[in-house]
């Protein structure tokens, strides 16, 4: 971890969110947790994380999507990478890879739960690298 990275976890499953927080903090990330969609958005605007790990199913089955769609409305969040985590990729018929200009679901990655920890970190690094490239270009 050459740089100090901020990760925001938006998930209503407190135990899972906590475990992710512990995992990522162990690897040197600064981690914040929000337990709801609107809380997550507000916190994101405040702390400006580099990556948001967003759970799809929270209070409603698609709360995560709604949050994801609102992100582009805030220009201050344009640099933030979004990792959508869900247990329902297959059930919702989502393609596994989304292009950057996708407006209907503006996230960088969709990952299927449970994600092996090593993979989660690899994906975070990839998203961060993508954002870095975007920023520098």
């Amino acid at each position, binding site marked *: 971890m050459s740089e100090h990275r901020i990760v925001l976890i938006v998930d209503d499953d407190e135990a899972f969110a906590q475990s*992710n927080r512990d995992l990522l903090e*162990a690897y040197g990330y600064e981690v914040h947790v929000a337990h709801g969609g609107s809380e997550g958005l507000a916190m994101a605007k405040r702390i400006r994380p580099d990556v948001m790990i967003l759970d799809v199913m929270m209070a409603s089955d698609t709360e995560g999507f709604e949050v994801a769609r609102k992100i582009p409305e805030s220009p201050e969040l344009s640099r933030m990478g979004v990792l959508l985590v869900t247990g329902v*990729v297959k059930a919702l018929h989502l393609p*596994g890879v989304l292009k950057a200009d996708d407006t209907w679901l503006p996230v960088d990655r969709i990952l299927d*739960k449970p994600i092996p920890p*090593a993979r989660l970190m690899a994906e975070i690094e990839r998203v961060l690298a993508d954002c870095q490239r975007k920023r520098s270009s």
Partner: protein
Amino acid sequence: MLKLKLFKRFAAITILFGILSMLLGVQIMRQRVISEAQTRVRLGLSSAWALFENRQRELCILLRLLANKDLLLRVCEEQRWNDLELRSRLERIRASFGLDFIGLVDPGGTVVFRATEPYSTGDHKTADLAITKAFNGETVSCVSLFTRAQLMLEGGGLADRAFLELEETPRSRRSPKMEESRGMVMLCAIPVRKGPSVIAVVYGGILLNRNFAMVDGIRDVVFRDDVYKGRQAGTATLFLNDTRIATTVLRENGNRAVGTRVSREVAERVLDNGMAWFGEAFVLKDEYLTAYEPIRDVQDQIIGMLYVGLLKQPFNDIERGIVLKFLYISIFVLLVALVLAFLIAGRLANPIHRLVESSHHMRDGKRPEPVPLSGCCRETDLLTEAFNHMAVALYEREEKLRALNRSYMETLAFVTHELKSPIATMMNYLYLLREQKLGPVTESQMKALRAVDSGGQRLVEMIRHYLNLSRIESGDYTPVRSRVMLQADVMAPLLTSLEAELKANGMCVENTIPATLVLNADLNMVREVYENLLGNAIKYGRPSGRIRLAAQPVNGHVECSVWNDGDGIAPDKLPLLFQKFSRLDNGGAAQRHRGTGLGLFIAQHIVEAHGGWIRVHSSPGDGVTFVFTLPVQRETSVE
């Protein structure tokens, strides 16, 4: 097809019995027609005899009247044989009653008087049995043969009238004889009495040779004057031996066929054996239904035959007409029977066809339509009813089972889904512990952590498999295709997450998949396939062995292969590999790694849902290769 089979059987039976009854019918009709005709001919012969004998009786009556005539008695008494009055009287009587000759014989057997030119007398008739009998007081009426000399004595040109040249006739007996000079006569001899003693015998007769009036008369009375197609239908003939001497049968030139002869068969039966002939016979060239009977002389010797016959042609034609009519009717009836057979076969077979159709309908999993009752027979209706009940019961049971399975699958999906977050939580902490991010771990603690981790991995795999199974079972597992870089999107993250496990087993992966290869497939599904195949390769491969990954475009597809250097799979187990819940117990690795038995089933489902195929090649000792195809992304040029 049942209907056709039934119809064929019915038709065969109908045609068989139809033909039998036709043959029998035709046979009976023929016999009937011919026997009717034959009866007519027999009756005709009887009538002919009656006419013949009638003529003889007439002759006798005439001569008896003469014998009692005063003039004749007086002449005989006084032996004035040259009495001119007697001669002129008798000559007139002879001519007017159609007799050919009349004569008187004195007791010495000498002919003393003749009423026919040249009135010759003085010859003896002692050898003539008829005359002898008459001198004994009998009235004699018979048919007799006169030699040419005798005929010449009787005068009146009888000898010439009787003379016939014989002709060769087909089918007749061969004979060297070229002519017939004898005459057959109808003869009558009456004693002339004075008191008890016979003082003379008066005799008279008719020559039958060329006596056409007689045969014409017989024919006209017996058969009338019927003509059939220009030919006389009925014929009558008098034979002297086998020679026609008077006949209504005509030759082709229209002349009467006198001098021709009867066929050999008739001659043998009637002339040689004295029996009557009834049956078919050739008369000259035509076939006739005939009757022949012998004519006998006073000594009971056969000297000729009386014949009547009917042309067979008219009866043949009648018979043909009747038979044809019968055949037409039979064929019509046969056709009607065949149509009925077809309809009956249809009525019998249709309910069964409908049952078969309905059962196919059911086999395809559709809701069974009740088969309508045909009402044609009770048994098929009962069967149909039973079938309908069964179909509904089966369908309901299947629906129940399906609903049960669905709810089971839903429960399974729900439970496994709910397991995801707690498992993910556990796996995160396990990872931190193993990576010693939460403080140092002793060797034995690390061992325990590895065991927990491997259990956790299995749990994660199980959750994935059961969720996929429930989606496949509910038909909800269809690919959502997108552009997938096989190397970057699938292999790289997968190999990263398997790194630890590979390292633990000392395995090395040879990955030759081109980085440029792009698929048009469902990313998660492709990942699932590789996850399952790689998972198996690690589980069943040799420790410290190799895993080889390759992929290349072939015919518009990408052919991918995953090879490991494991023990291989017995050939008889190969077909079981892709079945649901199949676990191959070939000892060793399989026992160590109890999986769900779903990985390959899911992989196969995914590959086939993409329109591809998956196969396994294995020979013990040579490793195991899984080969499968996935669709290539079209617009990408592949190197």
